[in-house]
């Protein structure tokens, strides 16, 4: 069974009028709107500390050991964090454009070039087990690797692989 791989890629939706990009920042690996971030933190602080404080106040009278009352209050505090997060998620939409598309053939050629650069050689399909070959056939990738392998001895792979590294994100 060969899978369809070359559906046209959807273009990213262009910025619509309602979208405000004045306050976008990359924080902790993803994009946020600074004003939304401040509001989300305030909401979460109120809900989580509120849940903790309220639970502590109520449980103090109900539970015998003060230590257990505090531990249960923390449980409610953590539920409060999740609640605060859920409210923030409802109030503030993600600052992401999610594009669904299948890699196009040109992209795949570049991956093979990147792999050649990274590994130094693509190896030979003849060395792989029948299971691997069957998998490649099934995915429709057999020809890609066979052709690349044929071109290999004198193949030029002057493609920059930096962009594949950049995808790992800016998380520190």
């Amino acid at each position, binding site marked *: 069974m060969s899978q369809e791989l070359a559906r046209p890629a959807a273009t990213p939706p262009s910025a619509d009028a309602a979208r405000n990009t004045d306050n976008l920042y990359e924080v902790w690996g993803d994009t946020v709107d600074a004003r939304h971030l401040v509001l989300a933190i305030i909401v979460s602080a109120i809900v989580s500390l509120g849940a903790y404080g309220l639970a502590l106040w109520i449980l103090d009278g109900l539970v015998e050991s003060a230590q257990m009352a505090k531990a249960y209050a923390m449980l409610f505090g953590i539920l409060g964090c999740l609640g605060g997060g859920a409210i923030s998620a409802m109030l503030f939409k993600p600052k992401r454009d999610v594009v669904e*598309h299948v890699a196009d053939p040109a992209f795949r050629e570049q991956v093979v070039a990147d792999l050649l650069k990274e590994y130094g050689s693509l190896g030979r399909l003849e060395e792989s087990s029948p299971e691997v070959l069957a998998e490649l056939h099934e995915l429709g990738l057999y020809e890609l*690797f066979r052709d690349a392998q044929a071109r290999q001895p004198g193949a030029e792979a002057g493609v920059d692989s930096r962009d594949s590294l950049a995808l790992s994100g800016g998380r520190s």
Partner: protein
Amino acid sequence: MEGLLYEILMALALGLFGAVLFSAIGLVSGTDETTTLAPLTMLVVLLGAPPAGILTFFLAGAVAKHMTHAVPTALLGIPGDTSATALIGDANHLRRLGVPHVALRKMISGGAVAAVIAVPLAVLFAVLLAPFGDVIKQFAPWVFLCAAFTIAYFSAGRWASVLALLPFVLVIVALQTLTAQYGVKLAVSYFLGIAVAPLITSLFSMLAPAERERMRRDQYRVFSLAPDMKGWRGYFPNPLRVINKRQTRMTAMAASVTSATFVFSPVAMTVIMGELIGARIKQAYERLTTVITARNGVTESTYIAEALIPLIAFGLPLSPVAAGPAAPLFNAPPRFSVDTATGEVNNLHNLLSNWEFFGYGMMAVLVAIVIAYPFTMNFAHQAASFVSRSISHEAVIATFIGLVLVVGIWEGGLLGLLVIVTIGLLGGLLGRFLGFNIGVQFMGYYTAVLSVPALIALLN
């Protein structure tokens, strides 16, 4: 007999709870293991869960998270958590080849195979090491000191990290002295501060004009979500048929080796094992898929072994995982403690026998596989789509800030909160500029708590 049945049922229930909870958490990228596993395990400990239940909660959570972290890693190209950063390169190659589902399936199958292998091996290694336990306990302060310097040297910062340990430890000792004056003794706050350090540093950076300009973006971030492709039948595909024999063999080998190397960081082992295996396979596609399978297997086996071996053999948190995400299994005052002066321990080490560690460990792994494996196989696309379209990064950050506030206030009031912020800012800056990573920071904490009192005693 009734007591045993109750214990087993509680362990099963807490294991299930951990597996479901952390399967969900694993889907959200950026939910680091330490930030999520440590506080929630601490909570389970403090609420009085039976020892077996604590173990199954932690292990099932860790195993499930390292399966579902494959979803953002394979389908969105963003690492699901810290250990997934080692897999992102391989995952991106497969995604760009148009076969992200292959990356996903191989990763979680490798994880399942490795997790099952790691538990018996970890228990076995622990039993072999146990005779040295008494010696190690006796010299615990010095063992921690040596471990801290070793882990520092092998971090990205090399000698900078080794030297930076001195001021870092000094700050922790100073903060402890300060809080002691007000009758406050903190532990979790230090862990949480270290774990959320990069977030705290980012938020501070945003307030500084020059840094803020650097962080500014003029458009939404574009994520390309890989399309849904189901290439198998049924609900629970056999992991051993998703990966071929050679991949199973390689994963088993990597899992066995990394079950023994428990003192090194999981991310480092994941990278190294991938390189070692990759060098033995010539054909590029086979190499790529085998490496990603084995690497995700290693994220499972290192977590299991690094938590279980020190716990069973010594009861001292002598590995990066034990010092970080698994810390509450060792040290959760007032219930669990490691005595600083005598090296005496009172934690899961004393409460469970070797056979119980093995039995409940296997139970946790199997529960996690039964929950996370079919879920990831069948609903990865829907899950990734939901998370990326509905859960804003603002909400994720706000949740963590809420966690910092609650845990800080809970443990030490305003002082607890200030300690989290201080340690977070210091640790984050040292990590960013010197490569003084999170593992070194945890060892720094243990050096401050265990080695410094011994050093002072020696000097006097």
